[in-house]
C-alpha cells in the first residue's frame, strides 16, 4: 500500500465524475453555445455549484442510513 488510508470506491467514483464534469465544462465548445443570454460554460459552472455538494450530501446520508441498518 502506498497510501495511509484506503479511499472508499464511492468516493473515488464521485471524485472522477465531478472532475470529468469540470473538464467537459472547460472544453471550448461550451463557450460558443449561448442559452438565455449566457454561455453554456456559465450554466455548467452554476450546475456544478449545486450538484457537487448535493450529490456528496446524498451519498453521506445514504451511507449513514446504511450503517445504522447494519448495526441494528
Amino acid at each position, binding site marked *: 500500500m502506498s497510501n495511509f488510508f484506503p479511499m472508499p470506491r464511492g468516493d473515488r467514483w464521485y471524485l472522477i465524475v*465531478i472532475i470529468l464534469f469540470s473538464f467537459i465544462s472547460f472544453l471550448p465548445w461550451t463557450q460558443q453555445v449561448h442559452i438565455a443570454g449566457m454561455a453554456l460554460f456559465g450554466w455548467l459552472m452554476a450546475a*456544478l455549484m449545486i450538484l457537487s455538494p448535493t450529490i456528496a450530501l446524498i451519498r453521506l446520508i445514504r451511507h449513514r442510513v446504511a450503517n445504522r441498518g447494519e448495526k441494528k
Partner: protein
Amino acid sequence: MTIEYLLVIAYLVGCIGIGLLASRKVLASRDEYWVAGRRIGTMMNAMAIMATLASGGSIIGVMGYAYSKGIPYTLALFAGAVLGFPLASILVAKPLRNFGKFTITDFLAYRFPHPLVRYLVPVIIVVSFTVYIIAQMKAAGITVEFLLGIEYKWAVTISTVIFILYVSIGGMLAITWTDVMQGALMLIVVIGTAFIVMFREGSPIAIMEMASAQAPALGQVAHQPLASYLGSFVIWAAAIPVIPHIVMRVFTAKNAHGARISLNVAMILYSLMILAAVFTIVPVGKIHYPDLQDADKIFLQVMQQEFPPVVRGLAVAAVLAAVMSTTDALLLACSSAISHDLLGKYVQKNLSEKAGNYLNIAIAWAVGLVAMYLAYSPPPLITQFYSAAIGLLTAALFVPVMAGLWWKKANLIGGMASMIVGVVVYLFFQFSPWMPPLSAILIALPASALAMVNGDWKSLGETDRASDD
C-alpha cells in the same frame, strides 16, 4: 438614516455581547479557544462554515466581479470554491482528524519534520491572510461609507476595532456563535433581495435575457484568456482543502462524518446565495447602472436606489456580517499561526494557558491593526486581489498536504521541495506581465507536484546507494 444606524448598532452590540459571553468559557483552556472544545453540532458547524467562506467577497466582491468581468468568469471562480469542499470532505477531513493534528502547520511539521516547514508555513499563512483581511476591510469600509455616510477611513477603523474585539476575547466559540447569526443574516438579505428583484423584474432567465441584450459581455466567455478562467477555478478548488481557517472548522466538529456533512450543507447554502446574487441582482444592476466606476459598489447602488431604509440597514449589517464572519476566522488562523506554530515551544514552556490566550489576543490585535492600516489604501476588485493571495497559499500547501495525507512515499526532501518550488514559481508567474490574471497557479501546482515526486526519486536513489554499501 436613523433606522439603518439602529439596525447596524444592534447587530454590532450583539456580536460584542456574544464575544463577552464566550470569553467566560474559553480563556481558561487552549482547546476551548482554538476548536471550541470540539463539540460543535453538524448544522451549527455547516452554517458557521458557510459564513466563514462567505466573505465580503461573496456579497460585495462577487457582484462587483460579475458586473466587471462577466458572470461566467465569476462562476468559474466560485464553482472552484464549491468544488473544493467535497474535495476537502473526502481528501482532508477524515484523514487529518485521524492524524490528530491541531493545524495544517502541525500536520506538515509532523509529516515533514524540519524547521523550515515549521516556520515557512505560518509565514505564508500570515502573509496570505493579511491580504485577505485587507480585502474584507475594504468591503466593510465602502459599505458603511456608501449606505451610512461615514467617511471610508472611519468606517474601516470602527468595523476593524469591533471585530478584533470579539474575536480576541471569544476565540473559536465566539466565532462559531456569531458565524451562525451572521450566516443566517447573509442568506436572508441576499436571497430575500433576489426574491424581491424577481418579483419586480421577472424570472432569472428573463432578467438575464434583458441584461445580455443590453450588455452582451455579461454572459460571454470573452473577458480574459481561458487560462485565467481555469486558474480562478483551480486556485479555489485546491485552496479550500488546505486553507487553514476552513480546516480549523473540521476540528470543531464532533466527528469526521459530522464534519463532512457540515462541509456539504454549507456549500449548498453558499451556492444558493452566490447564484441568487449573480442571476438577479447583478443583471438588474447592469441594466440600471451600466457605467459604475467602482464595480464593487453595484450591490450598494442597487440597495440605495431601489430599497427602503430597513432593507438598507439589514444590507449593511449583512455585509458587515460577511466581512466579520470571515475576518474573525482569518484573524484566529493568523493568531494561531504565530502563537501556536511560530512561538509554540516558547509559549508552552513559559506561559500558562491563560497567559497564552492573552498572547493570542495581542497577536490578533497586531495583525488586525496592520491590515487596517493597509486597507486605508484599498485595492480595486477585491475578489481578484484576495484570490491572488490565496493562490500563494495554495501553491505552497496543496501538494505537500495531499501527498502527506495520501502518499506514504512522500518524504522530507519532496515535502520541502514542493513547498518552496510552489511558492517561487507562483510568485514569479504571478508578477510576470505576460501571464493572464490568476493563471500562475496552473504552472505552480504542477511544478510543486514534480518537486515532490523528484524528492521521492532522490531519496530512493539514496536508499539504493545505502543498500549497495
